[in-house]
């Protein structure tokens, strides 16, 4: 039976509630449970989950719904009391932080009058308004929230540009400003490479590789993925290029994005013509001829872009990077031969399980060069769309960070549960030859990745020892999870860990082609 408890006017953020929800589901006697604000979207989630009750109609955005399914009628009281305790813990944790926690931006600015950045991650329908408030108070904004309308994005960016402010996002997950890593970012060295990115995981991969190579980042500005679409006209992307051009600390600039709209390409192109600083571009899935300007270096992978930038800031010839990558490629052969010899003949398909959208895109491009038909839930053009993203078909790469997987759930970079289930699902498929995956470290990401992932990987090996598990780890030595330690443990567990997402995709590609 299903019972519910409603707390009117009690607001909690969605992440806190998801964590509470997870804990409740794990409680004894509980079959299923949800703890959510009574928004329209959440009500429809309850409907799909079969947890909806007619009386919920009267509640709205600021009311908290606790819905529990259990066969033990006499346990509900106890369950609800436990939920209350969990919620109180969250509340008290906040209160314990000592001094007053303001309720509004206005209140925060009284507490900290010289604030210069607002990091906004509240629900999309409120986020635009808060961002505008912050801009009007003269704050730069990083808007992590998605579900902000296109019109609002344009309005915000116009205002920001007019007032010389950064408007990063909406849907901007990564930025590094003055050496401070924000939201989903890695902790990197400070240095002289500036980045403008319309892609969060792309920025994470490039900045991490640069830092691991011993170089550093001056500023890394995220714009949000929609910035380079026709409607937003690359407003913040172009502005950020200018800013880095003027920034004395920045010696080399890297531009990262998916293919921009042609009108935006033209604008970037004309800006590049008068550029004084060396520029490396990585516009995934475009060819070298995207820009007419000849004073740019075009990279074909995120890793290549990072290495080019390092070389440029070090006065090393670009050709050295190419040489290095070629030499490394030659060394792949031995690994490939070994992996192929382990494989039984039935197994022929690759399954990619990604938490980073751009990393998935990059793998699709690399694998797409020799495999004609790869299924994916990424909305890029050349790939065949996976009719049901929950089930792989032949060669498949899925991004588990796409909306269909994240409604009512934490992002797969934080919570591995869904991807872990998918690992097992792929392992049981007798046609799976390679499982390719990413592991993104850093702030915001899962803080105990090995504990949450290793048991699953070992289970995969028990089910199907022949499957090649190939991954790359996006992160740095300075990240709280410590990249080198993670790699060490993975390797000790016979996982093939490649130095970058691109090289992981590349070796996976070679193995598949050899089977």
């Amino acid at each position, binding site marked *: 039976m299903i019972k519910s408890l409603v707390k009117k006017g009690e607001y909690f953020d969605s992440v806190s509630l998801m964590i509470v929800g997870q804990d409740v589901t794990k409680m004894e006697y509980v079959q299923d449970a949800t703890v959510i604000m009574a928004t329209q979207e959440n009500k429809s989630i309850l409907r799909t989950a079969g947890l909806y009750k007619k009386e919920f109609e009267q509640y709205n955005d*600021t009311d908290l719904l606790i819905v529990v399914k259990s066969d033990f009628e006499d346990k509900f009281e106890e369950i609800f009391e436990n939920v209350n305790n969990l919620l109180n813990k969250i509340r008290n944790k906040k209160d314990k932080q000592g001094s007053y926690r303001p309720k509004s931006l206005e209140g925060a600015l009284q507490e900290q009058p010289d604030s*210069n950045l607002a990091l*906004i991650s509240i629900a999309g329908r*409120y986020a635009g308004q808060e961002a505008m408030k912050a801009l009007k108070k003269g704050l730069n904004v990083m808007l992590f929230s998605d579900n902000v309308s296109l019109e609002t994005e344009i309005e915000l960016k116009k205002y920001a540009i007019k007032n010389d402010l950064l408007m990063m996002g909406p849907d901007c997950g990564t930025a590094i400003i003055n050496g401070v890593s924000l939201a989903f970012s890695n902790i990197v060295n400070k240095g002289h490479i500036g980045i403008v990115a319309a892609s969060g995981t792309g920025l994470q991969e490039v900045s991490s590789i640069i830092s691991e190579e011993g170089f550093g980042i001056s500023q890394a500005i995220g714009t949000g993925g929609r910035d380079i679409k026709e409607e937003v006209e690359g407003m913040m992307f172009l502005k950020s290029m200018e*800013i880095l051009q003027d920034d004395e600390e920045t010696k080399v600039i890297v531009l990262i994005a998916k293919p921009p709209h042609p009108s935006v390409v033209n604008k970037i192109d004309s800006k590049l013509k008068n550029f004084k600083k060396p520029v490396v571009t990585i516009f995934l899935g475009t060819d070298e001829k995207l820009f007419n300007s000849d004073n740019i270096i075009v990279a074909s992978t995120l890793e290549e872009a990072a290495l080019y930038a390092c070389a440029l800031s070090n006065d090393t010839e670009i050709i050295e990077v190419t040489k290095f990558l070629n030499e490394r490629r030659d060394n792949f052969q031995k690994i490939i031969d070994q992996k192929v010899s382990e494989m039984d003949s039935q197994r022929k398909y690759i399954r990619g399980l990604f938490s980073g959208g751009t990393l998935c895109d990059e793998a699709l491009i690399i694998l797409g060069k020799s495999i004609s038909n790869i299924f994916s839930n990424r909305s890029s053009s050349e790939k065949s769309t996976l009719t049901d993203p929950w089930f792989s078909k032949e060669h498949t790469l899925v991004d588990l960070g796409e909306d269909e997987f994240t409604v009512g759930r934490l992002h797969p970079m934080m919570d591995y549960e869904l991807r872990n289930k998918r690992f097992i699902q792929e392992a049981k498929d007798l046609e799976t030859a390679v499982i390719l995956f990413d592991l993104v470290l850093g702030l915001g990401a899962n803080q105990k990745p090995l504990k949450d992932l290793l048991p699953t990987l070992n289970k995969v090996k028990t089910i199907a020892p022949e499957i090649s598990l190939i991954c790359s780890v996006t992160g740095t030595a300075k990240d709280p999870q410590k990249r080198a330690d993670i790699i060490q443990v993975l390797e000790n567990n016979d996982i093939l860990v490649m130095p970058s997402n691109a090289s992981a995709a590349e070796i996976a590609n070679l193995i598949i082609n050899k089977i």
Partner: protein
Amino acid sequence: MKFKKLFNKKVKTVNIGLDSFEKDLQQQGQEVTGLDWTPPADLDEHVLQTLKENQDKIERANEKALEIILNGKPYLIGLDIARNVIPGMKDNLLLHAGPPLTWERMSGPMKGAMIGAIIYEGKAKNFKEAEKLGSSGKFKFSPCHEHDTVGPMAGVVSASMPVFVLKNEEYGNYAYCTMNEGLGKVLRYGAYDTETIEKLKWMEKVLYPTLKKAIEFKEKIDLKNIIAQALHMGDEVHNRNRAGTSLFYREIAPAIVETCKDNKITAKVLNFINGNDHFFLNLSMPAAKVTLDAARNIENSSIVIAMTRNGTDFGLQLAGTKDSWFVGKALVPDALYFSGFTKDDANPDIGDSSITETAGLGGFAIAASPAIVQFVGGSATDAVNYTMTMYEIAYGENNIYQVPYLNFRGTPTGIDVAKVVKKGILPFIDTGVAHKDPGIGQVGAGVLSAPMQPFIKAATGLAKNLKK
């Protein structure tokens, strides 16, 4: 260029949303202020738009309203019988707390107090007779607020009751309030038995003439001064009036001794005032009322000038919307209950006493009153945080009423309905709790937030006026 400024400076972040982002910044050694963000009220887009377009107008009106509220000079100038002084008072009129209310919709304690008042006026002998009269239509009911009056809890005022007379010396307006009956079985909590009526009669026959002479002897008593001192002494003058009562006692006691020739009566009257920690509540309330009433009818102002409950509804009035009431359902307070009672016994919120919060006292000044923090969660930090939160919806800060703990910062004053709906933060009210049945009385004391609905209606009402 501002970017340069950002790039050369330390990043100082305001984090609005996920707590983990705040912690990550702290771990990087960065300065960050995290918000305990609340979503705004569910308000019509057009209303928000109208408020936005008229922001300057509203701002100017609010400045004026705040100035009037801060300049108010509430004085106690006399005691008199209600029918002699309260505008529109009649023998068949019963005033009550909160927004307008019909007999049928009255809650238990409100009905009980009405019955008590009918018996007190000699129009009925017992509950049955009084109830019949009350429901007969022979009596008219009207909010205290519409007669320059306020009353705690049920707030029932009938024609023969003695009332304090207050004057706002700056603006010349008046306000009235009955004398506080003390604790136990009292009319304001809906009691109507013989004991209750006898006490009211004693107050009319003995307390009233004695105190009246004493106040006449003093000519006037500066209540603003007493309230300011009481805040320094641990009162917020709503749920705690111990300091205010003591200060008032020091003012009035010598005058009573001077003017009352009967030692026994002198002693009884002095003991009555001294023995009732809430005696001053019936002065702090009209002091707030007389101060706020001067700011009525300031076109376009979004400042709340009355916030009150009748045990069924919660209602409020704005400076900028004349005499309109914006009404919603009254809520049941979170309270500490006297032994033997629970929340199930509690009546929804009742009383005009939230006029204190409206004037920047009571729950708004609870940081000044550590002695009663058990009402708000037990720690002094909780109390401070409540007051801090109220600064977010107040238009200004008080010039006279201060919170010592906050370095004598003025209390948050002048509730701005626009801020309430935009920030989704509701006024915080201290309150006593009445039993839901008539005749039982007080069952606890506690706190609650005002309901959102009346504030949404008020913002909508103001927007309508602005569009005209």
